[in-house]
């Protein structure tokens, strides 16, 4: 029987070992704090019905202490399963996901004791909140896989939100706003591309400064034009949700995925396209080559800088489209700095997801769900101050980036300007 001696393990094994210890500690924590300690316990009601979908189960009422204990035990079992897998030198992401879910459910049952939890609504809102994150992360994937760091996602989202809201209002037509949103993001991306690729300016600084520029411009125009002339410049109304026939009736899944606005459906298409083309098309292969080893790419005839240029602009367009979500996909009118740092969270999701499209989407969904959960808990009232829950995604990102649960490796040539003829810098 092999011993668990950390010194004998390879680095990835050691990391997985650390992950297992974390799971064990968390499960025991859940057992003690959520299940054992609470003195009183009231029934938690999980509601599963949202609107007009078919009803499989209307609601689930369970005593909070029972539920917490149940889920904590399940978490412990999942941990045991993970340990078994580890010994067999295998690992499974699904098992980790199950662990996360059970721990979360244990926590939720504890926190929402005596309250009503609109479960389907929670998931639906979570998806909604992760839409800009997903768009931003997709923009980041394309740009960074080509080797250009894109900190300006925040600015591109904001520019898209501004342009789509204003144009939709000026022309009283949401579609015009939606069509021009990507152009706004692309415009910012052009600045990024020119300064980063042509002049070789540091991409982190550049992205940051571009964000400041967009914030300044949109704030300025907001105060100068959008507020005084609101009915003309800022009175757009968001897209109404479109329910896909039949699919939107499926219990739980239907309302979450198939009863959203057009922007969300566009997002499904964008994510699928990017995932397929990045790994299965010529463009995808060239993009990845240019981001990992530009010298080798050039030697087979790829124009590195031109491809990077095009990709950065494409990324900006995607982020701009995601920006339209804030206005046309949510509240309709534009307000100052309405992206509120979501661009940076998208970047965090990208890193969390190891620079892969599906990984970034998964991370973004987690962040969006956590954000929505935090909002719900604040409304129904919980023991934990809301500010700490708001902090959670940021702390989670720091943990992820520090490689505690797995080393993150950016594309090798990410952030380094390329000079023709080989040799960067």
């Amino acid at each position, binding site marked *: 029987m092999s011993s668990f001696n950390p010194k004998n393990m390879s680095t990835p094994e050691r990391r997985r070992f650390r992950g297992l210890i974390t799971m064990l500690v968390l499960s025991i924590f859940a057992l003690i704090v959520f299940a054992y300690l609470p003195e009183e316990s009231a029934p938690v009601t999980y509601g599963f019905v949202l609107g007009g979908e078919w009803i499989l189960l209307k609601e689930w009422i369970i005593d909070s202490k029972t539920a917490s204990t149940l889920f904590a035990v399940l978490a412990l079992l999942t941990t045991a399963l993970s340990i078994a897998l580890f010994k067999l030198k295998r690992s499974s992401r699904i098992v980790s996901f199950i662990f996360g879910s059970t721990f979360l459910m244990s926590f939720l049952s504890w926190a929402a004791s005596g309250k009503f939890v609109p479960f389907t609504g929670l998931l639906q809102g979570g998806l909604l909140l992760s839409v800009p994150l997903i768009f931003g992360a997709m923009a980041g994937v394309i740009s960074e896989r080509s080797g250009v760091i894109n900190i300006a996602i925040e600015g591109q989202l904001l520019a898209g939100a501004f342009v789509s809201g204003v144009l939709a209002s000026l022309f009283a037509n949401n579609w015009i706003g939606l069509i021009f949103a990507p152009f706004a993001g692309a415009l910012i991306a052009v600045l990024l591309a020119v300064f980063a690729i042509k002049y070789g300016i540091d991409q982190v600084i550049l992205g940051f400064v571009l964000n400041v*520029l967009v914030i300044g411009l949109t704030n300025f125009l907001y105060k100068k034009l959008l507020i005084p002339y609101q009915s003309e410049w800022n009175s757009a109304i968001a897209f109404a949700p479109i329910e896909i026939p039949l699919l939107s009736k499926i219990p739980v899944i239907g309302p979450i995925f198939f009863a959203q606005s057009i922007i969300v459906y566009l997002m499904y298409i964008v994510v699928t396209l990017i995932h397929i083309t990045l790994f299965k098309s010529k463009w995808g292969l060239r993009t990845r080559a240019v981001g990992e080893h530009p010298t080798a790419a050039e030697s087979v005839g790829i124009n590195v800088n031109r491809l990077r240029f095009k990709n950065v602009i494409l990324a900006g367009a995607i982020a701009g489209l995601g920006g339209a979500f804030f206005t046309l996909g949510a509240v309709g009118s534009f307000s100052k700095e309405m992206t509120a740092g979501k661009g940076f969270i998208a970047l965090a999701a990208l890193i969390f997801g190891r620079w892969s499209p599906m990984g970034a989407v998964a991370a973004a969904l987690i962040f969006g769900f956590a954000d929505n959960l935090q909002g719900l808990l604040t409304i129904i009232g919980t023991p934990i101050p809301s500010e700490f829950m708001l902090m959670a995604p940021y702390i989670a990102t720091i943990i992820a980036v520090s490689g505690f649960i797995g080393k993150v490796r950016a594309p090798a040539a990410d952030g380094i300007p390329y000079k023709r003829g080989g040799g960067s810098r």
Partner: protein
Amino acid sequence: MIFEKIKLPILALIVALFVSGLLIAFSDPKVLALKGDPLSMFAKALSIAGAAYWALFRGSIYDPQLADTGFFGGLYPLSETIVVSTPLILTGLSVALAFKAGLFNIGAQGQFIVGAIGASYVGFTFELPIVLHTVAAIAAAILSAGLYGGFVGLLKARTGAHEVIVTIMLNYVAGYFLLWLLSTKAFLREGRFDPIAPEVLESSRLPRLAGQDFRLHSGIFIALLAAVAIWWLLNRSTLGFKFRAVGANAKASRTAGISVAKSTTAVMVIAGALAGLGGAVHILGADHALTNEVGGSFGFDAITVALLGRGTPLGTVLAALLFGALRAGGLTMQASTETPLDIVLIIQALVVLFIAAPAVIKSIFRLKSVDEGQAMASKGWNG
């Protein structure tokens, strides 16, 4: 030689002011209404932009309208400029120092907040004799913010976590922490329900320099002293040499026997302490009470200040004064001419962009060459 170094920033500023002036003029409906008549449109544009920039000057340097009690009364804006610039000098130094070591300290905002919290707490909780109290408050700020920054450096040194992401995240954490603190009993002022902490006691405040009518306080001396200290650190000390070596080429430094890990951690501790000192000076000298807006835009501005100052302590001081003037004057500009304060952000961003791409300035002014300073070294996530 100095003239060569400041030629680019000054020209960049002129172009930035010009472009912003265009924005101010042509976003005004009164100007746009004169579309058919180019001459009067031009005249109107000139008058609108001119009025805005005159208000900017009045708000930052000298205001004749306030000079009814004599010449010195009109210098109130100048005192405001210095008050706003003081924390900027410190946060700018924080970012500039980190730059020299090859690190991006985007976290000056969070470190500033942490320092402000520390100074504020010591300021209103303890009763100490007059100078001791100030020193204690400042020490608390430097310690807490130094740890906050050092954590980033340590993380980078041990795990390679990129400081840009970690510091941006920590900024938000600090912001939310402040939000929470201002809702707890310990930090809420008696009798008030809005999130404002008790005022720091008189014994801890930094003395005023120009009478009670002016907000000018001795924090400016602290800031200038810090600039001198950082200059000495970078140019005359072994530690500073190590910082600069690691910043120039980490691999070579490691080969030469310099511990990159220790340098990274050390520089972030000092950078954090500087930003925290900025927070302390701001609380003890100007605002006297902690609010949610204490961070203001100091962290943001610190980066543009450091970039404009080309990473040198003297440059940082001058840049901080300039951007401080823009901020202070911007308030007056917003009040008198309805020009939103955010134009200052635009000017700042444009100035930095032009400095980053000297080619643009060169072609505008047909210069043969321009001292481009230390090229902003491009680094990836992995290094």
